[in-house]
């Protein structure tokens, strides 16, 4: 029996911008893949490198961190810190042999619902191509999706 691999994506998103956009995407009934689990934070500046590593330990196939656009952070610099931490965490993932592309930083403004939908689509597609995280707790016949273009 062939079960299609469904990526599990964790999204750490900020209240003021990305969450608002995601909420509006819902109101607008925009269609996008359901693979994302959202964790709402006040600000992406709260995200620590340790959280990102913990997400992969918990079995996430991909992790998105999404905050305000540069210059618009409600807490001034939180999104800049998040951006640097995500970049550093990508290096740490590469060191241990996990694809750094599984982690990505986004900047999505409050009114940018379509951007949110696009970002989730892009990340889900990427996660399908990369395949399930080797750290995933084993699932019955989890296999990479067939015939999906990058």
């Amino acid at each position: 029996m062939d079960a299609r691999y469904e990526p599990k994506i964790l999204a750490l998103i900020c209240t003021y911008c990305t969450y608002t956009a995601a909420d509006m995407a819902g109101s607008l009934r925009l269609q996008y893949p359901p693979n994302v689990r959202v964790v709402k934070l006040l600000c992406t500046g709260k995200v620590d490198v340790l959280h990102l590593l913990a997400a992969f330990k918990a079995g996430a196939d991909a992790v998105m961190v999404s905050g305000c656009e540069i210059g618009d952070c409600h807490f001034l610099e939180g999104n800049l810190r998040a951006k640097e931490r995500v970049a550093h965490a990508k290096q740490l993932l590469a060191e241990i042999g996990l694809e750094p592309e599984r982690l990505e930083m986004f900047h999505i403004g409050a009114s940018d619902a379509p951007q949110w939908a696009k970002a989730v689509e892009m990340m889900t597609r990427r996660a399908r191509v990369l395949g399930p995280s080797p750290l995933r707790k084993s699932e019955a016949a989890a296999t990479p999706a067939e015939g999906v273009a990058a």
Partner: protein
Amino acid sequence: MIVAERKPFAEIAQAVAGYRRVLVVGCGTCVAVCLAGGEKEAGILAAQLDLAGQLAGRDQRFATACVERQCDREFLAELDAAAREHDALLSLACGAGVQFLAERHPTLPVLAGLNTTFIGVNQDVGVWDERCRACSDCLLSLTGGVCPVTMCPKGMVNGPCGGAVDGHCETDPERDCAWTVIHARLADSGRLANLEALVPPRDHSRANLPGRQTHAAYLRRYSSHD
């Protein structure tokens, strides 16, 4: 302060590969300040090693602990109980701390997670510069507060070599010639006369062997009694 940097991950992973239960021990003083081996770094490294172990299919568990510093026995004592429950300790202290920890647990493998680099200063966020080579014969008073032993690759103490180009060192066009700086510093403070006397050959006898330094007030305590 002592500056150190984390060893390449692959080298650390290799060193711990054979052990099932590893305690990653951070140090809260110098290496925490230079973001190499403090509590945060110990946590991140343990998480990485844990994930890497899983990827390699190894049965390994990594715990973390952190003490104020690893160069004082009173702090190492706090780790005694936890150490007994592990089959290796990965110390993120400088070389001195790693050794002190190893001396305290001679039958337990103690591994080093950092490369100790130099005595230095915090130049900027995330940037540290070497300033001292612990030569045991400080001549900073003579040279206007610029150390020629450290800041000159050749350790020249009687003035510059002939390689200075526009005040920069022959080893690197971005590096100031230490003697250019010394000369300017002394000139600006009217102390060029400091440079007249020939500085005789340095005494390296103290700086080369593992040293012991006893404070004058304690000499009597440690001297033999007749």
